[in-house]
């Protein structure tokens, strides 16, 4: 029997790595992938708790999260393409037009 704590620790680590990537990487695509990482960390937490309580609502949540992730990826990537069209770069440093 693996203690749920391990899973949670794993999820935490995963989440923080994702976060790290989001905050540090400059390539918009990579940032997106890191976001996916974070989402997965959350999923993992859901499932861990589901297992912990022997209750499958966590699975449903995970399912929804995946669906939302799909939508998010679609839109996000579309935006990336649009941005790339207009600026020829996907570097977040170059995309800061929404300032004062």
């Amino acid at each position, binding site marked *: *029997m*693996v*203690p*749920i*704590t*391990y*899973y*949670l*620790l*794993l999820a*935490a*680590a*995963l989440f*923080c*790595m*994702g*976060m790290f990537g989001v*905050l*540090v*990487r*400059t*390539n918009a*695509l*990579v940032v*997106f*992938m890191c976001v*996916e*990482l974070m989402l*997965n960390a959350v*999923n*993992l937490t859901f*499932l861990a708790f*589901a*297992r*912990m*309580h*022997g*209750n*499958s609502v966590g*699975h*449903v949540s995970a*399912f*929804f999260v*995946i*669906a*939302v*992730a*799909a*939508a*998010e*990826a*679609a*839109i996000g*990537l*579309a*935006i*990336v*393409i*649009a941005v790339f*069209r207009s600026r020829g770069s996907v570097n977040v440093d170059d995309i800061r037009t929404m300032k004062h």
Partner: protein
Amino acid sequence: MNIELVLFGVFAVMTLLSAGLVITARSPINSAMALVSTFFFLAGIYVLLWAHTVAVIQVLVYAGAIMVLFLFVIMLLNLGDAPHRGKPTVTRLLGGASAVGLLAVLGVTLGRMDAQPARLDAQAQAAFGTMAAIGQSIFTTWLLPFEAVSLLLLVAMVGAVVVAKSRI
């Protein structure tokens, strides 16, 4: 020292490794590939958590659909290696630090808790995490959110087309 723990250890280590690769790889392609592997190992961990269905969906949707989408985009934009790793600005340092700090905090917190999986009787165990059980609750209890999500996906699809189109 049972097999389950070993499997968990292997999967966990591999997950973390490939995740690390995701955030460190210079070229987006590598990151993407690393991410795929991360997903696979995670799917494994899901299985250890008796979440077969989700594991399957994970492989299908994520590794299958989403990542393919990513790869398409990357190739479409044919981005080579990032010429430079983003110069370490204050915000980046802060962000990284806070991520690490958060990890530490979470680590401490989780380290203090001892959570064990629920003990289930055989019949419940048999039903747990099966497609049937999940489908059951999705289509009864969570029907409305489910429909909402389907709508969301539709909207996302249309939106993606509209946003990404050069001209129709």
